[in-house]
């Protein structure tokens, strides 16, 4: 592990996790139970417990590795880790925090593009109509992710089963919802 550390103790991700989530990462004693129960651990470049370990060391280089990892974008927030942690460390919350930091600092792993564009498409659909407009979502996502031909077979089947209403539901409080978005996301998209 490289020797470089932060100038002040408040800069590290661990410190911020403590400040914002009240989660004390020093509680983690690296038993690996979180990773052991994680449904996608095998797909991750960095398992949850490895990630916690890197955060514990509170070094810029290691924090960077965490933020840039692909694994955090595979987390399904299924909360199995938090549920079983013997030290009651809320691992899933930490994952959430790390992801939002990665976005904020614009260092998210390239492979997160699809996932992010899906979520953004999802939110945009709400931003404008107040509720999710599934066809809109899928279309928007395809554009953003350029996976134009994905699931083309599925849509008609769904449509035939009345699972894809053609028109969006517009709620009255659309302005309210717009405002909510502005006051939280602000200009961010």
């Amino acid at each position, binding site marked *: 592990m490289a020797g470089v550390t932060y100038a002040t103790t408040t800069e590290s991700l661990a410190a911020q996790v403590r400040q914002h989530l009240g989660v004390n990462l020093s509680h983690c004693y690296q038993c690996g139970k979180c990773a052991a129960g994680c*449904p*996608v651990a095998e*797909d991750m470049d960095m398992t949850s417990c490895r990630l916690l370990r890197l955060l514990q060391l509170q070094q810029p280089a290691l924090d960077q590795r965490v933020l840039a990892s692909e694994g955090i974008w*595979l987390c*399904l*927030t*299924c*909360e*199995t880790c*938090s*549920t079983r942690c013997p030290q009651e460390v*809320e691992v*899933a919350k930490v994952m*959430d925090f790390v*992801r*939002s930091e990665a*976005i904020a600092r614009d260092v998210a792993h390239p492979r997160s593009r*699809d*996932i*992010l564009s*899906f*979520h*953004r498409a*999802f*939110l945009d659909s*709400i931003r404008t109509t*107040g*509720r*999710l407009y*599934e066809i809109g979502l*899928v279309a928007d*996502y395809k554009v953003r*992710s350029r996976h134009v031909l*994905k*699931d083309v077979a*599925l849509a008609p*089947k*769904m449509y035939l*089963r*009345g*699972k*894809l*209403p053609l028109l969006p*539901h517009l*709620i*009255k*409080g659309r302005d*309210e*919802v717009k*405002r*909510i*978005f502005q*006051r*939280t*996301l602000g200009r*961010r998209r």
Partner: protein
Amino acid sequence: MRIGYYPGCSLLGSSREFDESVRALAGALGLELVQVPDWNCCGASSAHVLDHKLSLALPARILAQAEAAGLEEILAPCAACYNRLASARDALDKDPVLAREMEKVIGRPATHKVRVVNILEVLDRFKDTLPGLLKVPFAHKVACYYGCLLVRPAKVLHFDRAEDPQSMDRLAAAAGAAPLDWNYKTECCGAAFSVTRTDLVARLSGKIVADAVRAGAEAILVACPMCQSNLDMRRTESNAYLGADHQIPVLFITQALGLALGIDANRLGLQRHMVPATFAPAAV
């Protein structure tokens, strides 16, 4: 009995049958569903992933709407909505500062005291009346699948036990079904990755389907639209992953109960499933 109702977006679209079966069942049980006026989307996992504040604000508005309508308790059949709403309520309840902040964001005061309950909790209140109403016992071996969102995080939801939950099994039994002891009750199905990482969903959902089949189930019962669509709509992919051809249908618990109460299969939306679910009630 009267209760607030928050269908949530997917129940208007990809999971219409859940909405339909809930309403049909409520009718049969004499439960009046009062829809939350002009409700908005809860933000689902997208808001959760992208922005913490937003993931609280959207539910906050919903709770405020319910409160304004004089509702004390709202039923959110969609497990995702239930989870987001309950989590937000919990957070706002625990942290007054945050609550005030959210009031600013949604632009009006609110106590956020409205209780959020899931469909299993609500149906459990009818466990005594159910047997009496039974017309066509749903006499099938079933694997009750809870997924993540109904039971985790336990600290917030306080519903059933986090490992090997029982509430749905009890209901299924009440409907005349034989709930099986199996291993994937609370394993994750892949959730919101259905579109983006279909490969993961195929694997995770595949394992679930496989274990249900191994246990000898004739149907998988769920109470979550995401689980249902991943296990049902993604069957082609999961079967491909398993290299198998599992045709086990995936029903919402409300559909199973509905059939048991002799409600017509189409009113319960069984025709909408990808994997054919034909439990035509042999009329008595």
